[in-house]
């Protein structure tokens, strides 16, 4: 049974269909890439899955359960976590506190303060932020803030992690580090869906790729299939060159 399914998911903004009749399923443990030109509806789809928005029509199921219409905190506790395209860390709080919140509230069962701090410290080590544990989140570099968002998301003990353009604004070294982090997350058994424009990352890390254009799914397949698909190439003519893929 796929861990996440979507049938006919549709969302309008005013008269414009941001996401139109999209079907998808995500197998447990896989790393799925979600690509498409700007405005294709990728982040909107994430927002629909994480319940930041409600679909106009269609159904989304997580582990077989219908999650359309639930609130974001409920989805989070069920095991879906995400990061944001424009980084939304809690700027004036220390790095550790950011993550500890995930441990406290992101899981369905309670946890003691000491355990939460221990878990959070462990996660900071996992993403490589132990050195800046006590710093204010706003004092971190962009790359580190993105790591912090990942740590915070992981603190909620997700089975499914949605990463929204985690590599945007990173230099090549940081991109390689991010790719490696995603692989380690996958190795923990967490299913990952990632929106990305950095083609190198998508092609190397993802096992399957879904392509959106003007809110509709236009292609789906392995990286090899997508790389050679005429439909995709037409849409991406120019985008590929720009992303340096």
């Amino acid at each position, binding site marked *: 049974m796929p861990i996440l399914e979507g049938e006919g998911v549709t969302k309008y903004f005013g008269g414009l269909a941001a996401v139109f009749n999209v079907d998808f399923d995500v197998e447990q443990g896989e790393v799925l890439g979600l690509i498409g030109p700007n405005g294709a509806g990728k982040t909107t789809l994430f927002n629909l899955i*994480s319940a*930041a928005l409600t679909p106009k029509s269609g159904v989304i199921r997580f582990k077989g359960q219908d999650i359309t219409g639930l*609130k*974001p*905190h409920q989805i*989070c*506790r069920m095991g879906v*976590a*995400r990061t*944001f395209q424009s980084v*939304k*860390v*809690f*700027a*004036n*709080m*220390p790095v*550790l*506190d950011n993550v*500890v*919140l*995930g441990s*406290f*509230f*992101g*899981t369905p069962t309670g946890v003691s*303060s*000491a355990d*939460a*701090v221990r878990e959070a410290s462990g996660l900071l080590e996992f993403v490589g932020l132990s050195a800046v*544990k*006590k710093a204010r989140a706003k004092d971190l570099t962009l790359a580190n803030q993105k790591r912090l968002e990942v740590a*915070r*998301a992981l*603190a*909620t003990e997700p089975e499914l992690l949605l990463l929204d353009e985690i590599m945007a604004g990173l230099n090549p070294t940081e991109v390689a580090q991010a790719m490696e982090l995603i692989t380690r997350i996958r190795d923990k058994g967490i299913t990952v869906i990632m929106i990305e424009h950095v083609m190198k990352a998508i092609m190397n890390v993802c096992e399957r790729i879904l392509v959106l254009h003007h809110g509709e799914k236009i292609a789906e397949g392995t990286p090899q299939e997508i790389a050679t698909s005429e439909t995709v190439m037409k849409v991406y003519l120019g985008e590929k060159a720009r992303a340096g893929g």
Partner: protein
Amino acid sequence: MDFVSVVSKRSFPLGSLLLILILLATSPLYAPVYTVVLLTSIFMYIIITVSWTMFSGPTGYISLAPAAFFGVGVYASALLGFVLPLPAIIIIGGLASSCLALLVGALTLRLRGIYFVMFTFGLVELLLHFVLWWEVNITGTTGRVVPTVGNTTVYYLMLIIFAILVLTAYLIRRSRFGLALQSIGEYEEAAAHTGINVTALKIITFAISAFFMGAAGAIMATRWTYIDPRIAFNPLLSFMPVLMAIFGGMGQLYGPIIGAAIFTYLEEFLITRFPYYYMLIFGIIMVVAILYMPDGLVGLMQKLWKRISEAKHADT
């Protein structure tokens, strides 16, 4: 707020706090009546200001309703003053205010903050109109008398509510819920996605803060003895706590306390010396504070302290 060092027990001047509490508890025995009465007023403003800060500080949702909640408590005393003992009235006043806060919160806290501001702003005027209409048309009274209790009793009651509030505010701040409230103020959407039920947390905290305002109102009514709707529902009581909190500084717990103490004393002074100018002066202070003191007095002191200690290190 550093949760880690809080968890590892940050050193707190507990000794000096206990000393202050003992001094306050025994002051009616040796202090002049004027001081006791002044301290009671200071407690009242501290209670309203600290409870206001408890919610509006971390979340950034600016409530303009303190006067309404306080007024509900005052009216509880006005209605039940001769029927029930004062401690019961205080609880009822507090609970009634909480219920009102729950209603207001449920209506407005699911929406953007601006609706909350607008709704709470008009609340005191609404209650004034409603109670006025009720008193004129239904009950036929235009003023009510509240039984008096001695100055000392009022003082001790306020001291107790003050102590409970400060303890509550402190515990909330240090707890995971205080952290969650702060995250709501930083990035509400991200907080929701981290598993925090933001709406429920906002509403509950708002209701808790309203309880103390109502309780304070119920007690103070006994000092005013004569209550009519205009006395109970006074917009100035929404303005003063906000001014005190902003001036004092909302980053630390003691900021609003300092602000409240300073302004209560200032108000006493101005009302006696310049009775026609105090609203003007407070209004000007508010504008100045918004413009030049974003972190309040506490923030200013912290900056000053930092500058002094940096200068010291520069010399070495």
